[in-house]
């Protein structure tokens, strides 16, 4: 898209400027002063409505992450929600009135199609705060480097999603006894622009699909879904790799076997069944790789932003969030001496199952100087985040190592 905006000298074409003037409703003053080959914000659909400090990892497809200090809100605002796309957002105009969801597959008694307005009126509406985290969040920490977006630690959000329970829909459709898995299909476009290719079609076992919190959602934080987050309809399944929460949702297949859609195979969203040395090659067979299900325990320090200098003697107030896939958080601790000693933080109960939990702590730095503040969470099963980078795997998934910030007492 961007190429067509510029003339051969790298300045915006007159037609692009006219379009832009139409959008803004005024002339573009100083257009001749814009940097060469610059793409004005208006054309950057992935950044529409986003905070200016979001980090763009890729703009084709759009992959955008959130710096940890921007995740300080209890409920992540839309402008601070990370974007992970495998393909391109639908390019045709989307008419929500004409949008339908079809439930089909080997394990439905008969396929059934609902309009969006039927979904809204026929079933009870629920709202949940749900953690969505990319399976590859933290990938940049792995050595040797693995393929894929080099996420730091900001491919996570906990927003408030509104929709209907998938289990209510499936109950209305009627399932056979042999249902074992679901697989979604969305209207995103393959990066090769071949309309016959499916970008991504993943899913979860039927047990997870039938949980109360598994939603077919049309709203986030009380607003209709933004295009980049799946407008007008998406699956939202908290606690598992966010790639199971399919966007631009039009079909859900109820399968009598493990779903075999795009990105269910190879090492996509899978890790070795047995640990391997860093960098080792492993044949990408189901015998060697298992599908990632519940995400591991993790936490972030969202306040203060890394780099804080405070007067020696003052109390340092810290806060953040902790989450652990399908499970709750038992404890969060902080350390300013590289893990030699730990101090317990206060942890609040989650708003609902699969929501992140807020923690806070007050610490005193023992003398002037440079510190790293580390946070580590322990889940309800007693499993704690590692301080070092955990098991290397070919897809660079599941790095749940502790987050830390730099602080100085001056």
């Amino acid at each position, binding site marked *: 898209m961007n190429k067509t905006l510029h003339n051969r000298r790298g300045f915006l074409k007159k037609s692009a400027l006219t379009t832009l003037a139409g959008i803004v409703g005024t002339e573009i003053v*100083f257009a001749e002063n814009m940097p060469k*080959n*610059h793409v004005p914000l208006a054309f950057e659909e992935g950044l529409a409505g986003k905070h200016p400090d979001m980090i763009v990892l890729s703009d084709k497809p759009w992959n955008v992450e959130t710096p940890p200090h921007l995740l300080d809100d209890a409920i992540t605002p839309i402008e601070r929600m990370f974007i992970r796309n495998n393909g391109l957002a639908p390019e045709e105009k989307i008419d929500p009135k004409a949008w339908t969801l079809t439930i089909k597959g080997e394990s439905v008694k008969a396929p059934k199609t609902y309009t969006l307005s039927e979904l809204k009126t026929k079933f009870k509406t629920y709202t949940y705060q749900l953690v969505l985290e990319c399976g590859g969040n933290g990938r940049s920490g792995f050595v040797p480097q693995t393929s894929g977006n080099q996420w730091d630690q900001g491919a996570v959000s906990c927003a408030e999603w509104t929709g209907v329970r998938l289990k209510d829909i499936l109950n209305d459709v009627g399932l056979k006894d042999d249902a074992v898995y679901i697989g979604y299909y969305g209207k995103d476009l393959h990066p090769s622009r071949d309309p016959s290719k499916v970008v991504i079609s993943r899913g979860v076992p039927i047990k997870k699909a039938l949980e109360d919190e598994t939603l077919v959602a049309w709203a986030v934080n009380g607003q209709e879904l933004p*295009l980049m987050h799946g407008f007008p309809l998406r699956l939202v399944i908290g606690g598992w790799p966010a790639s199971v929460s399919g966007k631009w949702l039009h079909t859900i297949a109820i399968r009598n076997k493990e779903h075999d859609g795009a990105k269910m195979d190879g090492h996509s969203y899978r890790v070795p069944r047995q640990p391997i040395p860093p960098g080792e090659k492993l044949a990408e067979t189901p015998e060697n790789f298992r599908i990632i299900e519940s995400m591991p325990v993790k936490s972030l320090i969202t306040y203060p932003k890394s780099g804080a200098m405070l007067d020696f003697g003052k109390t340092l107030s810290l806060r953040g969030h902790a989450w652990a896939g399908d499970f709750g958080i038992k404890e969060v601790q902080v350390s300013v001496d590289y893990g030699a000693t730990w101090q317990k933080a206060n942890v609040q109960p989650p708003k609902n199952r699969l929501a992140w939990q807020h923690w806070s702590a007050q610490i005193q730095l023992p003398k002037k100087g440079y510190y*790293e503040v580390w946070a580590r969470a322990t889940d309800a099963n007693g499993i704690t985040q590692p301080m070092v980078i955990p098991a290397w795997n070919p897809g660079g998934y599941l790095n749940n190592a502790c987050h830390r910030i730099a602080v100085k007492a001056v």
Partner: protein
Amino acid sequence: MIKNLLLVVCTVGLFVAAMQREHTYGTNPASTQALADSVDAETGLALDPNFTIVKAQCTGCHSPKLILQHRFTRDEWLSKIRWMQRNHKLWDLGETEKTVLDYLAKHYAPSQAAYSRREALRNVKWYKLEK
């Protein structure tokens, strides 16, 4: 979509926005490492005699940032090309395959830094915490 776009631009001066975008692009540490004497302003890719061929072959379907984020050996880069040919309809690069690999292996090879389970925090921007 136009409505979404409108939200972004309604009040912010475009020229200011332009400068902010330049800044935001520069915050990904992997893409800001000085690996070449000069980089192409549009793509961020290293400039050398093979740049034009690489740009033509590699940035039609995906963002140049997918290259800039990675550091691979020549064999690993080749495996990415084969993967794109299998899964993403990448065409046969013909004689330019060697050119593309020469370029990627030269500019985007793994660094020789020692292995670290947690390296030192880098690029800390210090500020006074008032509260």
